[in-house]
C-alpha cells in the first residue's frame, strides 16, 4: 500500500480544479462547458498545482530525482517552488503564480496562496541560524500577498492573513490578521523611519 495512491492524486487535482473554477466563475460567469474546463487546465495557477501533485506522487513512490525534476520544471515554468516533501490537502488555489511563491511544510484543505506568499523553514529567532523546522497550517487558510509563515509554528483553521503579515508565532483558529503597516484613517499617521 503506497502512502499516496493514484486515486488520491486524481481527487486532489479534481479538488484544485473545482477551487479554481469556483473563483473563475466570479469573473467570467458564462455557462460551464467541457471546452472551458479543458482550457482552464492551461492556466499557470493550475499547472503549478498539477506539477506539485505529480512531484509529491513521485516523491512518495521513492522516485526522488524525478520528483526534484518535476519541482524544478514547476519552478522554472510557473515560478512556484513547492518542495516535493510538503503535504498540501485538496483545493489548493494559487491566483498569481510567477511572483516567487515558496512552500515547505504541511497544510490542510483549500489553502490559498496569494502573490509572493511564503511558507518556509528556518531563520526562526531572526539570527540567521538555519533550522529545518517547517510550519503546520490548518484547513481553509488564506495567506495574503507577501505574507510569510516562518519556522516551527502552527496556524489554526479558518485563518485569514492580510497583506505583509510576518507570522513567526502560533495563530489560533478563526482569527484574522492585519499587517502592522495598515492603519485606520482616524488614527494618527505614524512616520515610518
Amino acid at each position, binding site marked *: 500500500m503506497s502512502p499516496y495512491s493514484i486515486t488520491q492524486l486524481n481527487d486532489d487535482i479534481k479538488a484544485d480544479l473545482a477551487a479554481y473554477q469556483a473563483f473563475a466563475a466570479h469573473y467570467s460567469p458564462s455557462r460551464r462547458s467541457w471546452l472551458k474546463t479543458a482550457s482552464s487546465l492551461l492556466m499557470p495557477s493550475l499547472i503549478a498545482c498539477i506539477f506539485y501533485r505529480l512531484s509529491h506522487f513521485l516523491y512518495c513512490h521513492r522516485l526522488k530525482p524525478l520528483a526534484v525534476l518535476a519541482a524544478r520544471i514547476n519552478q522554472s515554468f510557473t515560478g512556484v517552488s513547492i518542495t516535493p516533501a510538503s503535504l498540501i490537502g485538496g483545493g489548493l488555489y494559487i491566483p498569481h503564480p510567477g511572483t516567487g511563491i515558496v512552500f515547505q511544510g504541511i497544510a490542510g484543505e483549500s489553502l490559498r496562496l496569494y502573490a509572493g506568499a511564503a511558507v518556509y523553514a528556518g531563520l526562526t529567532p531572526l539570527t540567521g541560524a*538555519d533550522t529545518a523546522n517547517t510550519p503546520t497550517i490548518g484547513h481553509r487558510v488564506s495567506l495574503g500577498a*507577501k505574507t510569510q509563515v516562518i519556522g516551527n509554528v502552527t496556524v489554526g483553521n479558518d485563518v485569514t492573513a492580510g497583506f505583509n503579515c510576518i507570522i513567526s508565532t502560533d495563530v489560533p483558529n478563526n482569527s484574522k490578521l*492585519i499587517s502592522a503597516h495598515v492603519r485606520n484613517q482616524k488614527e494618527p499617521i505614524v512616520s515610518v523611519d
Partner: protein
Amino acid sequence: MKHQSINFKESMRRFSIDRRRLLVIMRNRQLLTGPLIWPPGLTPVFLYRLSRFCYERQWGIAARLIWQFNLFVTGADISPISDIGEGFVIIHPVSVTVAGSAGQNFTVEGLGGLGGGISLEDIGAGPGLPLLGDNITLHRGAMVLGAVTLGDNVVVGPGCTVTQCLPANTQTRPQKFRSRLLQETTATSTPVK
C-alpha cells in the same frame, strides 16, 4: 569609477565559494538537491559572475546581454555594476534586485534586495546605491534602498525596508501583525473595525 581587473580564474574561484555556501544552506533546510540537480539559486549567481567579469574587462555589450539573459531566465535582476565579494548566496531567485556593493558572505533570501533611492549621492557603490559590509543577511522581502551604508554582521528581518545607515552588529525586526478573532455569529454582520 576605477576598475579593479579580475581575471576569469578569480571570478570562478568566487563562484565555487558561492556554490559551496549555497549547498550547505540548502542541506540545513532540507531542501532537496541531488547530485545532478543544479540548485535554482545558483544560476543567477553564475550569470552575475560572468557578466561582472565582462563588465570589468569593459565588454559592455556582453555584460548587458548576460544580465538580460539572467533576468529573463531566473527573474533575478543582478546588475553588473554591483561589486559583490565571495560567498554570495540567493536562495529563492524570483524578483530579487541587487544594485549596489556588498562584501563577503552576502545572503539574499528572496523578494527584495538592494536598490537605488531618490538621491544620486555617490558613496562608493555608484550613484544612489547602497554600500554593505561583510556577513550581511537580507531575509525574505527585505530591501535596502538609497545611498546608505550598512556595517558588518547586519541582519535585516523579513519585510523590513532600510533607508538609513545601520552600524555593525545590528538587527532590524518586523512589527508584529494585529490579530482579531472572528466569531461565527458576528463575522458577517458587523464590519471589522
